[in-house]
């Protein structure tokens, strides 16, 4: 757990504005679009994106599954924890408000269950799984910024009692999610 916190902290710490060329090749060749994937202790990937002189690094944890709307899910037996990914929180900007569902309400895979607000934009958050909400992260009401600083740990959003696990094959594994992010970022 501490290591994944390290990974996201490292990712955000390393998110600095540097001339791309200086970082990667030291040559004059433009390297915008360079992506580097690194696995560390088999636990997570750091995916480095260089674009418009911004170097950004997003953590993708290896024990999670991912939806194409940039939510993650950690499945432990019959229950699942859901949040948004490091990639998502970076693209959102500073989160100022999180709309949480009611405990006991139902969620459906692919359907919206709440929203986050950042930079005057509310973005729907979709559930990667179907089931019943058994717990919501009440800390987010006072500290919505946890979604930014700790997207995979303290910034979790809901805990769900799974209906069945038939949804899970539809989700992406970490490597596939990383490639998905690369493809999305390349289409800018």
């Amino acid at each position: 757990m501490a290591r994944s916190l390290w990974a996201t902290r490292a990712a955000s710490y390393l998110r600095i504005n540097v001339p791309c060329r200086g970082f990667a090749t030291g040559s004059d060749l433009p390297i915008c679009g360079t992506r580097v994937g690194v696995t560390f202790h088999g636990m997570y990937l750091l995916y480095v994106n260089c674009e418009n002189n911004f170097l950004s690094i997003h953590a993708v944890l290896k024990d999670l599954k991912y939806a194409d709307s940039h939510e993650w899910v950690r499945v432990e037996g019959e229950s699942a924890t859901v949040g948004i990914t490091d990639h998502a929180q970076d693209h959102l900007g500073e989160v100022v408000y999180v709309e949480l569902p009611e405990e006991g309400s139902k969620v459906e895979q692919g359907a919206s269950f709440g929203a986050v607000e950042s930079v005057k934009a509310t973005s729907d958050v979709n559930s990667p799984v179907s089931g019943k909400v058994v717990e919501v992260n009440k800390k987010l009401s006072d500290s919505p910024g946890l979604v930014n600083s700790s997207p995979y740990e303290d910034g979790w959003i809901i805990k769900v009692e799974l209906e069945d696990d038939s949804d899970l094959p539809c989700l992406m594994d970490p490597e596939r999610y990383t490639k998905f992010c690369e493809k999305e970022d390349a289409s800018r």
Partner: protein
Amino acid sequence: MKKCRISLYGSCFRHFLFISPQEMRGPRSIEIWKMGAVNYLEALKLQEKLTSDRKTHKIKDTLLSLQHPPTFTLGKRRTVHNVLVSEAELKAMGAELHYTERGGDATFHGPRQVILYPIISLRDIGTGARKYVENLESTMIELASLYGVKARAGETGETGVWVGQRKIGAIGVRISSGITSHGLAFNIDPDLNYFKHIVPCGIPDKEVTSLQKEVGLGQKLPSEQVIHEQLVSCFTKIFGYTDVTWRDKTSVSSDGNE
């Protein structure tokens, strides 16, 4: 430093590096609807329909360019404390009040204020909320610069477009499954007295201004239609749309039919 520590664990590493050059994008298409004055709820219903159609790929990216009659709105956080008069008083002055699902705080819309509501797919352009909103800010900054007005984006927590400490443009967006709705409002020359009845965008002690006020009340601006078109052109340029179709929809109703 953490960056150095990664490289020490060489044996645990599997790393790959590839250069993916900027892919050649195909032409980006958008359809602009010139709508004239539209009631707020009608515009909201239309946006809901277009958002749904865009999600299911029935339509391409669409931009609504319009104005509202005097209307006060609140965002998802329902910050009613930033509306300083009762709903009855608002009605008495000929204005409506609406609660919306967009981000942002209290604002006012009225005649002589350009509204743009882009209904576009952020996923298709690989953009997130933050970059999208920055581009909306740039759109208004660019328009202001056409008139020699030096505007800037707001500081952290003050999203919008400012001239000095005076707000000239506001933003409030909703993103649902990657499709945007709501958008921006730029003041050409609205009646700024309406803003006295709210704490605009929840930021107290900051003035609201307009393009007319900034160029000088003695200076004549071109017609609103011209300024609408210019703002739309700034938008399409900043967002990289190369295939732009204009449609006159001044008689369109909320179900999208003329």
